[in-house]
């Protein structure tokens, strides 16, 4: 099936620019007439994913495939990887540094929020190699 493909570089050095990809995806979804509730779910899930890449993996790539009834998002990084995915999924668990926490991030809600706001989520991670998070949100 035909889809709209969008690709973004997520800059790992810059908190302020995190959200650029989700912002652009949001615009496209709104221009398609996707319901506000769905736009909101996509925005929150994707924004959390971008922030994660900035905090933990020095950035990476965000790719989106938009279909008439859903969006598939791939967040790919070459960061440290996640050793224990089940633990990482626990609300409140975080490996973020004190510095990051002092900025108001690293509350351990990133992955749980991504799960909550998406319909499907898969994490593929190898320690020392990187992580790919797949998110699907149905409209």
């Amino acid at each position, binding site marked *: 099936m035909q889809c709209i*493909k969008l690709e973004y570089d997520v800059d790992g050095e810059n908190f302020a620019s995190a*959200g650029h990809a989700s*912002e652009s995806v949001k615009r496209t979804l709104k*221009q*398609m*007439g996707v319901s*506000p509730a769905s*736009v909101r779910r996509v925005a*929150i899930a994707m*924004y959390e994913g971008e922030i994660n890449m900035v905090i933990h993996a020095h950035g990476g790539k965000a790719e989106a495939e938009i279909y008439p009834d859903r969006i598939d998002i791939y967040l790919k990084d070459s960061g440290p990887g996640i050793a224990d995915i089940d633990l990482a999924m626990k609300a409140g668990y975080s490996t973020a540094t004190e510095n990051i926490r002092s900025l108001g991030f690293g509350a351990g809600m990133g992955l749980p929020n991504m799960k909550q706001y998406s319909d499907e989520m898969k994490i593929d991670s190898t320690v020392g190699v990187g992580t790919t998070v797949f998110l699907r949100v149905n409209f």
Partner: protein
Amino acid sequence: MPTLKTVVLDSEKCIGCITCMRRCPTEAIRIENGKAKIIYDKCINCGECVRSCKGGAKRPVYDSFDLVASYGYKIALPSPSLFGQFSNLNDPNYVIEGLLALGFDEVFEVGLAAELVTDCTKRLMQRQSLPRPVISTACPAVAELILLKFHELADQMLNVYAPAKIAAKLARKQALEKGIPADEIGIFFISPCPAKVYSLHKEEVSNEKYISGVLSQSDVYFRLVDKMNKITNPRKLGKCGYSGLGWGSSGGESNSLGLGNYIHCSGVRNVLGLLKEMSDGKLDGADFVELNMCPGGCVGGVLNVENPFIARNRMRQLAENMKIPPVTLEDYGLDESFFLWDKAPEPSTSFQLDTDRFAAMQKLMQVEEYLKKLPGIDCGACGAPTCRCHAEDVVTGGGTLNCVKLREVE
């Protein structure tokens, strides 16, 4: 219904520079044949193009002062920001006496209605039934912006009419109770901005409801100064207190609610930035968000005379001298139903590329194809504010890409 316009172009003065097009927060301006054209479907009437035009080519539209004379019983509704326009003003009653000297039979301060709106909002907030953070709808340009581009925040809009409309509703009610015939009552809001001119025209004047016309603050100002200079001992006519007067500046509305966790922000870029954060779910926890499109709040509206920050300082000093406490619903025998929207405003679909989703997707795919060709420098030479906008225009309106950079390459 005819298309309402709040800003029109003086073609002779427009030199086709791209200043207004760049500053427009909703990408509603294009340069066509060397002149700035407003796409009214996407215009939120914020007045940013009026503010930024170097040549004075953008003209805000408002009602003529002559309209006032056609009514038997004339009521003026001055907004709080009007009181910040005069140097050395130490008593708001000079302004009220001045309006009466101008021919109005009665003055109903919008600040007073603002105090009532505050009281109503407080009660609604306490009930906790509104989704948080509640977004103020007092600035009509902000409300239009949400309805155009931030549909996901629409259910957080405060469902209460803005003070100008409440003032008109109350003033008409009181005039009718005095026995004045309905067709003789003329109610005129004196507006600091084109957004309020537009929204009140759309809701009110065109439906012949509470407001008969909307005047410009700067137009009234020059007539008023002359009258005010002749007043020596003004009567104590003003009923609006410090709280209502505060509504003229950013933060006035939210401060008056007595909440701990609130945000207020003003200016086009700041408002856009905060709405984006909210739509990413980042303001969860705040109870109330007050947004004003104009810098500094209503004092920054383009129909004002004075610099917004000078006006704000004056209003603060005026407010500090006022000992009048805010009024309550009980004082006026009102309940919340007097303030609530009859119905929620409809979100606009003007931002969509097509109302059919499949057609919209096809167009968006074409936009992405064009974006691969375009240089992405957003120079504006094609007459659109960004390369993306140009691609969207070509996809929706037909024609071919018209880019100076592309031609250079060829």
